[in-house]
């Protein structure tokens, strides 16, 4: 009994607080994983949806598409779809966050003696894991259907890194929006908005085929930079461009997520602390 008490006081408070924070994040991540087990169809449908889109765009529309600079549309499409999948992840983040907030689960967590960031970090961990899974499923699908990357392994890994970086940045956008959304209507409005924003990019078609003004907007979509950089790293067609924005895709694929993070990370954390205020 006494030794136990001694052991407790011997731990520096800061270190034990850090350890508790890790446990909290793990417990809250586990909670989300248990949701997957409790409702496996939700996650399976979520993983299969991008596959369905690849099939739709690859086979239904693919024949009518021409890739600037030549090459197969399928090879053009796959890196775009990787980026698109990262973008669609925002929806699930927003949905999970608003569900918790509206059901009162968030308030329960906020009334516990845990650090404010643990709850959002748990969300973050599980969404990243989900995205890694989605990306893996999509890459395997691509490989089965004939997509190949021609670059080096380390470039391919870098491409995956850039994709996950985009997802990570968008996650905080999603958390912020989810905490700000007051009701289910706001969420469904957002779910509709995701589509035009996703399509207003070079994911499915090259921006040079669009009207000039629209193409300019589309190429400034962070999604476009990540898609272009991914194409470049996988050495898939569609990476070359003659504008500054497409030539700096590599730089922008890092810069955009950092800008998004710089804005939305602090906003999301503040929102969480000041919820209902």
């Amino acid at each position, binding site marked *: 009994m006494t030794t136990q008490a001694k052991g407790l006081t011997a731990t520096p408070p800061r270190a034990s607080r850090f350890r508790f924070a890790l446990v*909290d994040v793990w417990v809250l991540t586990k909670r989300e994983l248990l949701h997957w087990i*409790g409702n496996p169809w939700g996650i399976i449908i979520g993983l299969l949806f991008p596959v369905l889109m690849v099939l739709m765009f690859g086979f239904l529309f693919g024949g009518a598409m021409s890739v600037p600079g030549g090459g197969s549309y399928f090879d053009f499409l796959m890196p775009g779809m990787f980026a698109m999948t990262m973008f669609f992840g925002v929806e699930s983040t927003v949905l999970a966050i608003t569900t918790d907030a509206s059901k009162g689960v968030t308030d*329960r967590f906020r009334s*516990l*003696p845990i650090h404010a960031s643990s709850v959002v970090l748990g969300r973050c961990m599980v969404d990243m894991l989900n995205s890694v899974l989605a990306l893996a499923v999509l890459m395997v699908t691509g490989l089965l259907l004939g997509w190949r990357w021609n670059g080096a392994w380390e470039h391919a890994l870098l491409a995956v890194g850039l994709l996950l970086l985009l997802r990570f940045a968008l996650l905080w956008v999603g958390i912020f929006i989810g905490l700000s959304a007051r009701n289910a209507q706001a969420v469904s409005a957002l779910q509709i908005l995701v589509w035009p924003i996703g399509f207003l990019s070079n994911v499915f078609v090259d921006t040079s085929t669009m009207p000039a003004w629209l193409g300019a907007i589309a190429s400034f979509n962070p999604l476009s930079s990540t898609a272009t950089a991914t194409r470049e790293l996988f050495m898939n067609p569609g990476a070359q461009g003659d504008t500054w924005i497409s030539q700096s895709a590599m730089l922008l694929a890092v810069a955009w997520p950092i800008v998004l993070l710089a804005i939305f990370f602090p906003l999301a954390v503040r929102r969480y602390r000041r*919820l*209902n205020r």
Partner: protein
Amino acid sequence: MSASDFAIRAYRVKKNYGKSTDGPGLNGLTMEVPRGTIHGLLGPNGAGKTTAVKIFSTLLRLDEGEASVAGYDVTAEGHRVRERIGLVGQYAAVDEQLTGWQNLEMFGRLYRLPLKQARLRAEQLLGQFGLTEAGSQQVAKYSGGMRRRLDLAASLIVSPEVLFVDEPTTGLDPLARQEVWQAIQSLKEAGTTVLLTTQYLEEADQLADRISILKDGRIIQEGTPDSLKSSFGGDRLDITLLTQEDASSAAAILRELGDGGFSVDEANNRISVPVSDRTGSLLRAASAFAASGLEPLDMVLRRPTLDEVFIHYTTRSDYRDTKEATQA
């Protein structure tokens, strides 16, 4: 009593939401709840009950004034407060997608229990609240009563110093209601302070040591259930008649006797007369009825119910300041 004898203290707490749709504000809430007591916080919808509890539980920040819970300031020492409180009811929910068992284990871990202890505690609590069998079921499939018991269990993982409970027995059958009331009573005996908000005055009457009535963001009356009933003005004589005709002739007789200010419940043919001399009034009314051949079904002398007290105070516009009206 010294400051540390109070589990909850609020001094002129003000809270103003920008938009009224966000919730009712508080307008100088002052109250004190001694440790180890059950305190009822009553008020009509929109009085600010939930707002007050959210401020006490650090979910919401106050604009002005001071509030402390378990001896810690809710603004400056929120973390210390959160270590010592539990929330039950509409303020906070369990995770519907998890099983009861998974919920309790999770909350146990978040209350800093080691894994083994968290599991042990989860099992204990499931047993204590009759949920052992349902423990492996998803909460979404629970009945209302099961959910409420799980809710209560989740907030008792580490016994809190102060427990905030909202309408704990809504939708429960009488037996389950008794069980929840007993659970709350035994918490009090173990030293927990309970702040109970409810629409059911019977619940407050049964459980609360003291009651505060909240209206428009401030306390308008405070006292023990008994003192509130007395302050409302004495006893009532309830006379129930067989028919509506009988009821109106009884009313006429009472008017002649000078027992004014009575109210008539036409649906039940019941007349309720405020009386000052209990037996005198009863005898007068009874003999007058006998003389005119009226035979009431029922004549009962009773104390005012908390419902009547509540309706009286919350519908009155000229309420006085809390302190003057208080007598314990």
